[in-house]
């Protein structure tokens, strides 16, 4: 995927110079291993600083909301990001005409925590992608890992690697795995008793420090006033109390029902490594199972909870 860099630079430069876009959203190479820096550039001269590799896991669609209605925006979009773009258009946050989407077929993003664990948490100074290998270097060590063993969890189960909406495409399409994805955490949860599931939920979210990085990294969380900040009535307390923290995560996940594309940004940005997708995964799977719906696949399709069928399931309603 590193080969996309040159095309992104050239495209951004051209689009900014000829006025097709007022700004271009992409990434710069990070100063730390396994992370890149999302950036919105407005100057064609800065196009040379853009970069792409397997660490571009943050969802760039995040930066599309709250912009001026007449702003023309260029953006690099992988499969999940392009789905979020479709959703944001359906939800009236941005129009298709404003956007120039540079599609990026994606082989999956690297999960830095997995690489860190693989080298025993010794300090990593650099990680280089060379084809299907990752060359990991630190103080006094250099190891070679298989890229495919260290993908973000949502990338492992992804079945939409290619952008579903784009003006330009950076490379040939990636083939989708044929077999259905297996969500081990959901399978494990289903096998537990209610009490065990509750304990698991509590323990999993206990270390949450309420920084709201998960909410802020999510392109679908754009409410001007988040429910967390509502005071009359106050739906959830602001301290690190367990019940409040669980309430926050439950309600945030539910607000994403039918809107989550499983881009993994929430899990990626959590500073205390909480598997935030535990809840949204369940909703995504239920949306698929109950309504044969996957967010953002079809441009112009109404969001899941904004539509209904007369035959929707109601076996649980007396």
């Amino acid at each position, binding site marked *: 995927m590193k080969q996309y860099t040159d095309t992104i630079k050239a495209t951004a430069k051209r689009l900014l110079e000829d006025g097709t876009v007022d700004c271009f959203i992409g990434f710069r190479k990070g*100063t*730390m291993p396994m992370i*890149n820096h*999302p950036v919105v550039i407005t100057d064609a001269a800065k196009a040379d600083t853009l970069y792409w590799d397997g660490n571009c896991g943050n969802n760039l669609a995040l930066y599309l909301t709250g912009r001026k209605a007449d702003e023309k925006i260029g953006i690099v979009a992988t499969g999940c990001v392009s789905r979020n773009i479709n959703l944001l258009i359906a939800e009236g946050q941005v129009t298709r005409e404003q956007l120039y989407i540079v599609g990026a077929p994606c082989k999956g993003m690297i999960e830095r925590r997995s690489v860190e664990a693989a080298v025993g948490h010794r300090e990593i100074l650099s990680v280089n992608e060379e084809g299907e290998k990752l060359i990991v270097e630190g103080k006094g060590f250099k190891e070679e890992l298989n890229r495919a063993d260290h993908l973000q969890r949502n990338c492992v189960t992804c079945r939409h690697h290619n952008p579903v909406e784009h003006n330009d495409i950076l490379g040939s399409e990636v083939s989708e795995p044929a077999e259905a994805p297996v969500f081990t955490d959901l399978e494990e949860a289903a096998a537990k008793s209610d009490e065990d599931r509750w304990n698991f939920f509590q323990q999993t979210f206990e270390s949450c420090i309420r920084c709201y*990085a998960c909410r802020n*990294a999510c392109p679908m969380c754009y409410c001007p006033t988040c429910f967390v900040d509502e005071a009359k009535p106050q739906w959830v307390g602001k301290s*690190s109390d367990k019940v409040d923290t669980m309430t926050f995560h439950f309600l945030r996940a539910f607000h994403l029902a039918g809107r989550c594309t499983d881009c993994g940004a929430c899990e990626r*940005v959590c*500073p205390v*490594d909480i598997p935030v997708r535990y809840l949204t995964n369940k909703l995504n799977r239920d949306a698929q199972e109950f309504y044969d719906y996957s967010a953002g696949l079809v441009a112009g399709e109404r969001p899941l909870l904004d539509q209904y069928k007369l035959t929707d399931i109601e076996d649980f309603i007396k």
Partner: protein
Amino acid sequence: MTSKRFTKEAWGKAVEGLRESYKVWVPAKEGAHHFFKEYTDDITPDFEATKTRMSPKHTVFPQSERMFEYSLESSDADANIMKDTPKDYSPQAVVGVRPCDAYSFNLVKINFDNKEYRDPWWANRYESTTFIGMGCNEPCSTCFCDSVGSGPFDEKGLDVLVYDMGDAYVAKALNEKGEKALAAMNGGQDAAEADLTAAADMAAKVEAPSKVPTDKLRSQKLNDLYDADFWDELASGCLNCGACTFACPTCWCFDIQDESWNREGEVRKRQGDRIRNWDSCMFPLFTLHASGHNPRGLKVQRVRQRFMHKLKYYVDKYDGGTLCVGCGRCVEACPVNIDIRQVFELMNDFSK
């Protein structure tokens, strides 16, 4: 001042022994990271850990702290009267704290305990705390403590400084508090002159790997920096998530919230308390006025504020250097890789 030498095993036992006279905080592993935790029976201290994910500021300034309590049940004699929450300010010791973090308490104290105001919760807890610090033999690649007034073996803010000599720890008391703590740590021998010399020699060779320029920060014109053209692009990727402020040892902002709930499960018997929680200038609500006006309603204004505060306003106001101790936690915690080291360069080297 007393110095003692402990084998690593003896050190472990000595720290455990400290629990008899202090509430002890130690670095302990949780998941992939280390955090300063209360040394209870189920905790295993890890003094070999490098940087904790979150700073030790919560040992003096907890993330959520109850300040007052009150009953809202009108039939109670003390209904609607705010009562101080009883606090425990008995002596505590933070063991394994790094020099950068210890120095951060000095910087934060200027805010919480000065001639105009003394925050009783922070100040009382700070005064009851002894900092038994561990110098850094191998600072992390993101550390730049040397550039901002601290250093891998800097003594500011510490009561005891400990040198890791490989096979042993050499602990040096720096003041009366340190003496007292060291006296309560059994199992060590008095350190020999040779031990102290070896420790000092070792420390002198250690340097923080990262460097940032700070020489021109004081002389930069505040308004020029404020109106600089680099803020828009720098702030464009920011999520305003607050991870930097929560991980930062010198960030001190908090929000006070009143909460009420049902006492004894009775909906009509309401109880309330006033709790203060860490807040963040990164949150849009931070500066929201009751009128609805928000002077920092735009993301770029908030991002600019944070860096101006740390690297300019504090510098100008107190003339004692920046409000950054070079611990590098924000660099590691930022989910979009906004690197404060780059901001130091942008601000220090800025010219109109």
